[in-house]
């Protein structure tokens, strides 16, 4: 834990002071504060139990399980193509991105690869679901910190992206479009031009949010130095995505692993931030949305012609084996450990979802913070309930 800034140090001192108070029996009569299960800051039904001393949290713990659907058990009675219906509903704001790693894992076990055109369209839809997901985060962030305007902008501009996803896949939230060996369908006519126009709008949206929110003094003072996660703690807890990159770890699964996807065909940048505080996490997400629009723009121009489906048997039996595939989803690293027994359905699927790891850090992170900062920290960690409980 070297190289701490002043703000980071203050945050540490505050959390240590909270510990010391407990240990020295100086604790005043505490109070337990329940946040949730129904709270706007929780994107679903998460309950945070916080033990307070005055305005300071001395102990906090999230209580999950309000939305546990048992997907890991359900996959064992589904066939491989049926599993995508389930996993669509894990992170419901960026559903298409959930399907991709599972399909890639199944394809890896089968030794099939989607045609290049399908890989391009997959990558584009993957990035579109990231934009839809993160643009809602950027708007919601404002609401949680007391600014009303950004959420209207976000809902307006997210709609354009959802319309694109709908016109290509038929589903606004749960496309279920990815198939083992390719995609269900080709793109509709005129989709590419429409997408270009929308990407321009979304870049404009990013600029607006950057001015309105990130340039706002109140926003800055409420997020800077709040909820600092140092690099080694982030790695220990297995944080991923923007939360990890905000702690200065230069690691993006889109760039740093070889997958049959087309991210390496575009020119884009992986942003990192050295501070590790709430501001850094939000800022990284904003930059990532911009980069996503760039990726989409570049890939749109180079989609090759050809089929969107490889030759796969009608009844899909996946050969015996084990495969682990993870991708850089809107919320972070989303991966599937798929075990097959040569059967119609998987033998076991371990779903490694990003929010589960990202939220498991909160008991450590919330200690010593003040009550309003709980909301800031939860908002900046950004989780989707379906992604925690699965």
């Amino acid at each position, binding site marked *: 834990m070297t190289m701490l800034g002043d703000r980071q140090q203050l945050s540490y001192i505050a959390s240590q002071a909270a510990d010391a108070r407990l240990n020295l029996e100086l604790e005043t009569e505490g109070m337990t504060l329940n946040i949730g299960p129904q709270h706007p800051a929780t994107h679903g039904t998460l309950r945070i139990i916080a033990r307070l001393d005055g305005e300071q949290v001395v102990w906090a713990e999230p209580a999950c399980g309000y939305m546990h659907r048992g997907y890991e058990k359900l996959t064992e*009675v589904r066939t491989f193509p049926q599993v995508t219906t389930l996993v669509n509903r894990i992170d419901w704001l960026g559903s298409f991105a959930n399907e991709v790693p599972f399909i890639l894992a199944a394809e890896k076990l089968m030794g099939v690869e989607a045609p290049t055109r399908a890989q391009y369209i997959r990558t584009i839809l993957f990035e579109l679901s990231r934009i839809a997901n993160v643009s809602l985060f950027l708007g919601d962030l404002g609401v949680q910190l007391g600014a009303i305007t950004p959420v209207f902008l976000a809902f307006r501009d997210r709609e354009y992206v959802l319309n694109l996803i709908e016109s290509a896949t038929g589903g606004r939230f749960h496309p279920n479009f990815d198939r083992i060996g390719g995609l269900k369908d080709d793109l509709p006519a005129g989709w590419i031009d429409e997408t270009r126009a929308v990407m321009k709008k979304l870049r404009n949206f990013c600029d607006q949010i950057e001015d309105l929110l990130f340039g706002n003094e109140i926003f800055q003072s409420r997020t800077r130095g709040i909820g600092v996660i140092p690099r080694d703690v982030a790695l220990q807890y297995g944080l991923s995505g923007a939360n990890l990159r905000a702690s200065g770890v230069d690691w993006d699964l889109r760039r740093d*692993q070889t997958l049959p996807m087309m991210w390496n065909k575009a020119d884009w940048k992986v942003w990192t931030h050295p501070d590790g505080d709430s501001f850094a996490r939000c800022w990284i997400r904003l930059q990532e949305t911009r980069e996503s629009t760039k990726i989409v723009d570049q890939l749109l121009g180079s989609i090759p012609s050809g089929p969107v489906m490889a030759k796969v048997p009608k009844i899909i039996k996946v050969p015996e084996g084990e495969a682990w595939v993870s991708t850089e989803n809107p919320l972070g690293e989303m991966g599937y450990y798929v075990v097959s027994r040569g059967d119609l359905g998987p033998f076991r699927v371990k779903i490694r979802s990003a929010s589960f790891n990202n939220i498991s850090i909160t008991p450590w992170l919330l200690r010593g913070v003040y009550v309003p900062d709980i909301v800031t920290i939860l908002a900046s960690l950004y989780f989707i309930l379906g992604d925690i409980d699965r």
Partner: protein
Amino acid sequence: MKQLSSSSETTTPVVDVVREQMLEAIKGSLGDALIDSHIKPDDDLWIRVRTDSWRTSVQKLRDVHSFDYFGFLSAIDWMPSPYGRGEDDPTEPAPERDMTIRSGYAGGDTRMQVFIRIVNSTTHFGLTVKVDVADSAPSIESLITIFAGANWHERETHEMFGIDFVGHNDLRNMYLPVDFEGHPLRKDFPLLARMVKPWPGIVDVEPLPGGDEPEPVEQDSKDGDA
């Protein structure tokens, strides 16, 4: 960055130099704690360690080989499910099922295995570490002092598989009610939804109310772009 291309089909057996070297290095530092290993070239590396040296092995992997990123921890029940996929017709006698326990990559001697995924955060090289867990009263050392993030994963695994993690003093349920009995992800735990109502896929597609055969649906009218 390396490109995956389907056109360059080479028939020579692929030797994954990076993973072979890493495996040799791990063999050197773990010694006889390492029981078995498996390499899929250009894909992944699996190792299996002795149950009594689970904690020390993971500690060495973190400290010596800098696998400092904690991906996940979970378990696998290798026993085939006695209920199959819950698609049997309840009026028929239960089909014969092959109930032999076969382990996956890197082998195994027990019904249940715990496995983790750890990654080196600078080289982005990841591996899966498996460990056998005794069949009766399954229990294993907790990794909570090595990776703080293992806390919730061990709680979840305890709840779903009934594996005890020695050294973890907060194994409360994460999802299920306190008085829930059984461990849902064990293969001998039935999926109740399939038990109370027969799988509707047994019968063929039901006829429409009018009694007519459904018309074959034409390909939807979306125009392709290419």
